[in-house]
């Protein structure tokens, strides 16, 4: 398998380490809701098909990527620097506050 790091170019996947599903967003550090954390820590979508995942270019530039890959064909659709695509969660209560 080959992954094209946006910075280093195309490399063998042995240079990279997968760090799991990237479709979930890490809850805000101040979020203390148990369900939110339980789902985040233990439940992953595990799709048969397109899958977004974090990969670390461990033996290359050391940067973190979000790779969109097919879990059946292993085809890679997209690779981005994680920094560019992850979005931050809102602080807990922010939504509620806004609603009020």
């Amino acid at each position: 398998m080959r992954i094209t790091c946006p910075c280093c170019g195309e490399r063998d996947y042995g240079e990279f380490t997968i760090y799991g599903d990237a479709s979930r967003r890490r809850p805000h550090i101040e979020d203390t809701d148990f369900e939110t954390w339980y789902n985040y820590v233990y439940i992953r979508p595990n799709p048969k098909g397109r899958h977004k995942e974090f990969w670390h270019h461990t033996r290359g530039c050391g940067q973190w990527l979000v790779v969109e890959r097919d879990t059946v064909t292993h085809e890679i659709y997209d690779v981005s620097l994680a920094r560019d695509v992850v979005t931050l969660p809102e602080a807990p209560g922010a939504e509620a506050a806004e609603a009020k």
Partner: protein
Amino acid sequence: MAGSHRIPNGGRVTHGASASFTFDGKTYQGLQGDTLASALLANGIHLVGRSFKYHRPRGIYAAGAEEPNALVGLREGARAEPNALATTVELYDGLTAKSQNNWPSLQFDVAEVNNLFQRFFSAGFYYKTFIGPFEKSWMWYEHIIRKAAGMGEATTEPDPDHYEKVYKFCDVLVVGSGPAGLSAALAAGRAGARVLLAEQEPDLGGALLSAPKGSSSDQWLSATLEELEKLQNVELLPRTVAWGAYDHGTYTLMEKVADHKLQPDEHEVRQRSIVVQTGRVVLATGALERPIPFGNNDRPGIMLAGAARTYVNRYGVLPGKQAVVFTNNDSAYQSALDLKEAGIDVTLVDARKDAPAQLVAVCKSASIEVMSGRAVVGANGRMRVRSADVAEFDAKTGASSDVVRQLACDLLCVSGGWNPVVHLSSQRGRKPEFDAKLAAFLPGTPPDNQHHAGAMLGAFSDAGAAQSGFAAGAEAAQLAGAGEPSRALATEGLTSADWEKPLVPIWDIKPGEQVKKRKRFVDFQHDVGVSDVELAHIEGYVSVEHLKRYTTLGMAADQGKTSNITGLALMAELTGRSIPETGTTTFRPPYNPVSFGVITGQETGLHFRPLRRTPLHDWNLKNGAEMINVGAWQRAWYYPQGGEDVDAAYIRETTQVRKTCGMVDVTTLGKIEVQGPDAAEFLNRVYVNGWKLLKPGRARYGVMLRDDGLVFDDGTTSRLSDTHYFMTTTTAEAAAVMTHLGWLLECCWTDLKVHVTSVTDQYAGIAVAGPNSRALLQEVFADIDFANEAFPFMGVRETEYKGMPVRVFRISFSGELAYEVATPSGFGEAIWEALYEAGKGHGLCLYGTEALGALRIEKGHFAGNEIDGRTSLEDLGLGKMASTKKQFVGSVMRQREGIQDENRQRFVGLEPVNPEERLRGGALLHPHNGPHAGHGLGHVSSTTYSPALGRFIGLGLIEGGLERYEGQLVDACYPLKGWVVPCKVVSPHFYDPAGEKQNG
């Protein structure tokens, strides 16, 4: 002459360059250019081995990698190589080979009795037998069965040869060097693409090499090779098999660099693993001839028609004097004619009623008798075919008559049609598609970056193959970004004759009523016959996958190259399903078997995994340290004096540290620079305790949790400036922590401005511990005031020693007054030596990891044995450390009932009731005086002899911890050795619990 059956000056071998070799201890002569198989045939030897299950005599059946029978034991001693294919072993002077799977000899093999009982040893018979009488009876039978199974014998000696791996990159990879492959390489080469061509054989040319020497195709071949060799952008790799096709254009190749020599030259590898990354691939892997099952179709002297032709034309060998050629298609006529031309008597038996008229006429004029509408229904002879039983045959119904003629022969050639070599396409998950006209599976639409050409697509003429190859090569080059071929393909010299008459598919020759029933083999190597397929059918193992596994069809080392298609076609016939409905089994890497050695390459011996050395490694070795592996590192375990063993040494070292002082290499601890405006906030989130108030120049102990709320790692982190922290981690988790921090910063908290950089390689770490450490450091680093008030516990100071920067941390793992010195790695040895020299006046000793462990156990510090990924803060007695004023990684999940459960096992100290009695790590804690059953109350995690206490002590985890068990007796049980050591549960802080020493 090199062999009695050699055609004078015949073939493409080098006459005059003779090579002597032995087979089963007897010496023979062959020629350079021979394979072991051709050299054996040149000496009139057909019988070369015994079959897997029935121990039937077997000969040479093919002329290439598809050979199912001629497996031999090659070379001797440490270089012994079992199961070598005689048909692909290049002959060299001094070659030694022996036959396999027979006792006492190849000629007389006792186990051939199995053959007499073969109908009892039918497919899957072992599933129905050897069941009783007792529950474990199989253990007894297995012993005997295993001995009988297996083929060649492996050496148990280490391999003296070397291997390597090389990475190659190209635009177009061409696999196969027949007319199709060469033309593909030519097209891509002429288009300016970077081309690699891999051919498993030593010579390039593929099927062209099987044409008679001097054929018109020879000119085409030499002109083509000449041009290819001149092209700078084309690399030709003979002796190189492409064995695997992987995701995204990765192809794995194996080059036999020195297998054709007695042994590799100096500095030469035996084999080379080539990992190719390519833009496009042209597969031109040709087609393999397939057998036809008839009675005793496995006897020595029976071979594929194309193989016989190859032996005659390429190797100049007469595989017999009197041949019968049995075919269902046109291709075997060429073989018949070439055999005849070489002086072999030939009779041709064509199963088709309407044999191709023109070819028949040519045969006639060459005095070859052609019998059409006939089939060979059985072969006679045991060690060598003697005659063929021929019967009338109706290809439509498959019915055959009584034997109408018995043709004497010592060579029986068979052609059942051609199976395109679709492996590398199918490995990519593309199911092959059945072509009814050819009665063969074609590769189907090429998967991902592949192109297919030549006989692999059913193009069976030389010119047709070349044209399809050229077109594929041109297209591949273009898609890879190169231009167009500078010139078109010339096919002068290549024949373009296609088959005159279509083949009639024949999967089995069922003998007529009156004909002797003899086993008809489908898979020679695994002794699978038509009757086994029938049995599988009767018993309901009708899916091809069940058929394969129940009968082991296609599961031998040849992976069914000659047998798979026939087997599944037979099952299709039996079930009444079509062949495409029945389908093939899955093609998997490798195409040919591949050695462990070649994949291992240079990653062997001490280079198996990279060894990590601290800057003090050389010094430690020079000064007699015993080293120990710790992850990738080697660390000083202990420094023996006068023949001490580890126990004596660590007790002495530990004692000395507590008495005066000692010094240990702690470079392996993970070291991470945490820098940036948000560094304090970041640490506050990753550690359970607070970090914002820590002042520059101070250090603090911290613990990190995983997301699930269990302890991840711990260490001391110092604040060097407002925005700069220096973190240390445990040796074991250093990389994991670094990765985790990076992930949090780059994938989660992208709003934090923090950089983490591993500086484990940048600094050497030296710990100096013991009551004299202050005086020693004061002497060496005179600029720093080491007085307790000036430089308190958890303080950090910087200075220089003779121009070398040094950072001193007052931290302690041993419970003693202690310091850690960090200095840039290149100065590590100099600083260490300065301390060592000065230390002589302070009673300094060197200590290793064993004493380091003893000291921390005495002090009651937990380490990797306790932080094993299952412990919580509370388990380690650190519940109070967790800040309640902030959230941190794991703060929510650690609240779960299972993590807070009071019955969890918690960290305690253990004292054997008898202080002399040794505690062992890994012992279980059970109630005192029993019962000693079940999972126990806990376990002993770390143990040592404590010189300070004059007794053995231990650390452990026990249900409910000190609260429940303090002062009580439990038994540390080690049922593996029957040891039971009663101990008292005590506080883990054995040594200086108030911390007066480290703080004083």
